C-alpha cells in the first residue's frame, strides 16, 4: 500500500532537506520511493510543497487532491492551504508558527488566526507542535525542519533505520548536534 506525504511551508524553511533525509531512510527500509518538488519562483517567499510517496512499487511521483495520508505543515496557514490534498482519515502535523505573507503585510488580506480550530474540528487527527519555537530554544531556528521530521517519523512508526546517522550524513557538519537534539525533541511532540 503506497503512503502519500505532503510537506508544506514557506520558501527557505527547509522542506526539501527534510524529504531528502526521509527518502534516504525509506530507501534503507527497502521501500520504493518517489518524491516531487517544485523549484523556481516559489523560493522567493512563496508557498513550497514537497511530495513524497513510498511503498512496494510507486509509479506517479506527485500526489493529487484527497490523496495524502499525512500533511506536515511548517507554517500553520499552509496546513489550511494543503487541506484539499488530505484524504478522509488522513492526519495533519502542523507547527503553530505564523509567517505573514505580503498581502497580509500590506493589509490587503487577513491572516486566518483561528484556522487550527477549524482544522481540528473537521479533520480530527491534527497534531499541533511548536517546532520552530523549540528550534529557537536550541539556538538555530533552521533546525525546525528536522524537529518536524522527528514528529513525522514517530507518527508513521518508521523504525528500523538509524535516522540519526542519516541526519548526520545530510546536514552541514557544524549543525549536526543541534539537529540531533531537534530530532529527539520532535519525536516527543508526536
Amino acid at each position, binding site marked *: 500500500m503506497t503512503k502519500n506525504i505532503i510537506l508544506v511551508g*514557506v*520558501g527557505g524553511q527547509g522542506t526539501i532537506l527534510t524529504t531528502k533525509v526521509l*527518502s*534516504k531512510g525509506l*530507501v534503507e527500509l527497502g521501500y*520504493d*520511493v*518517489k*518524491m*516531487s*518538488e*517544485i*523549484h*523556481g*519562483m*516559489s*523560493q*522567493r*517567499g*512563496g*508557498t513550497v510543497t514537497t511530495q513524497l510517496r513510498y511503498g512496494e512499487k*510507486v*509509479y*506517479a*511521483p*506527485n500526489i*493529487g*487532491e*484527497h*490523496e495524502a495520508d499525512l500533511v506536515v505543515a511548517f507554517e500553520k*496557514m*499552509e496546513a*489550511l*492551504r494543503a*487541506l*484539499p*490534498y*488530505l*484524504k*478522509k482519515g488522513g492526519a495533519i502535523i502542523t507547527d503553530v508558527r505564523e509567517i*505573514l*505573507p*505580503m*498581502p*497580509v*503585510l*500590506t*493589509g*490587503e*488580506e*487577513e*491572516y*486566518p488566526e*483561528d*484556522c487550527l480550530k*477549524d*482544522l481540528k474540528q*473537521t*479533520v480530527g487527527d491534527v497534531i499541533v507542535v511548536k517546532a520552530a519555537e523549540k528550534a529557537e530554544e536550541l539556538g538555530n*531556528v533552521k533546525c525546525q525542519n528536522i524537529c518536524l521530521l522527528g514528529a513525522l517519523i514517530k507518527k508513521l512508526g518508521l523504525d528500523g533505520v538509524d535516522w540519526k546517522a542519516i541526519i548526520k550524513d545530510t546536514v552541514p557538519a557544524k549543525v549536526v548536534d543541534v539537529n540531533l537534539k531537534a530530532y529527539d525533541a520532535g519525536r516527543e511532540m508526536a
Partner: protein
Amino acid sequence: MKEKVIMSGNEAIARGAYEAGVGFASAYPGTPSTEILENVAKYPTIDSRWANNEKVAVEMACGAQAGGLRTLSCMKHVGLNVAADPVMTIAYIGSNGGMLIVSADDPGMHSSQNEQDNRYYSKLGKLIMLEPSDSQECKDFTKLAYELSEKYDLVVLMRVTTRVCHSKSIVTLEDPIPTPCKKYVTNVEKRAMLPAMAIKRHIVVEEQLKKVEEYANNCPINTTEYNDTKVGIITSGISYQHAKEVFGDTVSYLKLGLTNPMPGKLIDEFCEKCDTIHVIEEGEPFIETAVKVRGHECTGKDKITIQGELTAAIVQTSLTDKPLEEGYTVDVKPADRPPVLCAGCPHRGFFYSFTKFRDKVVALGDIGCYGLGVQTPFFGEEMCVCMGGGFSTTIGMAEALKAQNDPRKPLGFLGDSTFFHSGLTSLIDAVHTNANVILCLLDNSITGMTGHQQNAGTEVNLMGKPVKRVDCLDMVMATGIDADRVHVVNPIDQKEMDAAIKTSIENDGLQVIVTRYPCALLKYVIKERGNKHLEVNPDKCVGCKMCMKVACPSLAFKDGKAYVADVANCTGCGLCSQNCKVGAMTIVE
C-alpha cells in the same frame, strides 16, 4: 552490488552524461532544466560551462561534437526557441562525437511563460526524440542517446518535463565508459552547410531516419505490456507513470521511449491486438496524431486535457467512472502567499521609484526576478514576452504611443544575465535609431531567478575557475551611445533612482538607466552585511505607513506601528527608512 541512490531526473541526466563519457557540456539556466548542468559540473571529467544563451550553448556543443567529443546541451523549453537556428541544421551535419540536446518542458507553467510541447522540434529538426519517464530512465536514455547519435550519425533531442526533472526516484549507478575524443578529420561535404552540400546531406538524413524507425520498432525503450487487451494504452514520459497508477495491470500498454521517428509497425501491431486504444500524453496530441495517421481509432485530447500537467486523478476522471477519494473542506480560506522580491532586493528600489512616475511611463518587462514587480503594490509591468523582449518591445511601443498622441514614454527593463543573453542586440537597435524609450538594465551581478548561476559578468565560471569579467556597462558604452544619455545609479538610493527616471522622461530620445547593486542573497553580500539590520523606535513611529509602501517582507505593521517582523532576513538596506519623516528608523549592526 551496484550502488542505488535516490536522484532527481536532472541529477540522473548529469550522471548519465558522466557514465557516457561526455567531454563537453553547455547550457543557459532556466527552470526546470538548471540543475542538469549544475550537476554535470560536479564531474571534473566534463568541461561544463554556462553559455550566454541557448543558441551559443548549442553551437559550442556542435563545434565540440564535430571535433570529436561527446557533448550535452540543456535548456528549458523556451530556450530551444532561441537555439532553434542551429538545431534545425545540426541533423544535416550529423555527429562525430555523439550529441544530445535536452529540452525541459514545463507543462503547468510552474516557472514559465507558456507550455509549448517541444516534441514537435524533433520532427522539424530531424532529430531522434527520447522521452524518459523517471530518473533511472533519464540516466539510461542519456547513455543510449550517445550510442544512437553516433551509430546513426544524427543528433538526439530528449524531452523531459518538470515532474521528471524535479521528482526523485531510485537510480542504479554504473561506472563511466572510457570514451576518448574521436579524431577530427576535415569533411567539408558533411559539415559546411551551403546549398550544394546541404541538398546532398538532406537525402542522407532522411535515409538515416528510416533506419532509426526500423530500430524504433524493435528497441528496448519502446515496449509492450500485454494484460487484458480490451483496453490498450499508448503513452510516453511521465504520463506512463500516471497511467500505471490508475490502471495497474488491468490494461495493456505500449510505452514509447523513442517517439521520433515514430515506431509505426509497433503501433500497428498494438492497435490490432487491443479493442479500444487510449493515448495518454501531456501537452499536445503528438502520439495521438501519429496513431490516427496510421488509420487507427483512439481517444486522446478529446478526453484528456491539452493544458497543464497531468496527474493520476486527471487520467482517472477522464477515462474511468471510478470516483476519486473523499477529502475535507473548511469554510476559512488561507491568505494568498505569492512569491515576492526578497528583503534587500535591489529591484525593490527600482520598482518603488517607478511607482512615483507611473502615469508618465508604460513599463514593459522581461524574464527574471524583476517579473515579480508585476504584482501588488508596484504593478510595474504591462507586458512580458521573452528573454530580451523587455528592450525590443519598448522600441515598438514608442511608435504606437506616438501614433495615438499618448505622451507617455515606454520604459523597458531587464537584468544583467538577460542583457548578455539577448538584450544587447535590442539595445543596439535602440541606439542606432535613437528610439524614444527608457531602457533600464537592472544589474544585480548574477543570474538571480534560477538560483545564482555565473554569467559573463561574474569573475568565476561554473567550474570555479577565474575568468575575464565582462562589464555590462562597458557593453552599453561600446554601442557609442552619448554619455549624457546613460545614468548609472544605486537603485536603493531613492534620490539617485528618482532623478534618473525623471531626467529620462524629461529628455527626448533614448535614455539608458543602469542600476548597480548586488543580489541580497549572494554569499559575499550576506557576509559583508553581517548583523546589519533595521530597528524601528516605537515611541517615534507615528504609524503613517509610508515605510510599508516599499512592500518589504521583513517589515510589518501592528497596533498602529511599523516593526521589523523578520530581523534575520532584514538586510538593513535602508530603502524603507528613506520614507520615514519622523526619524523612527535606524540601521544598526
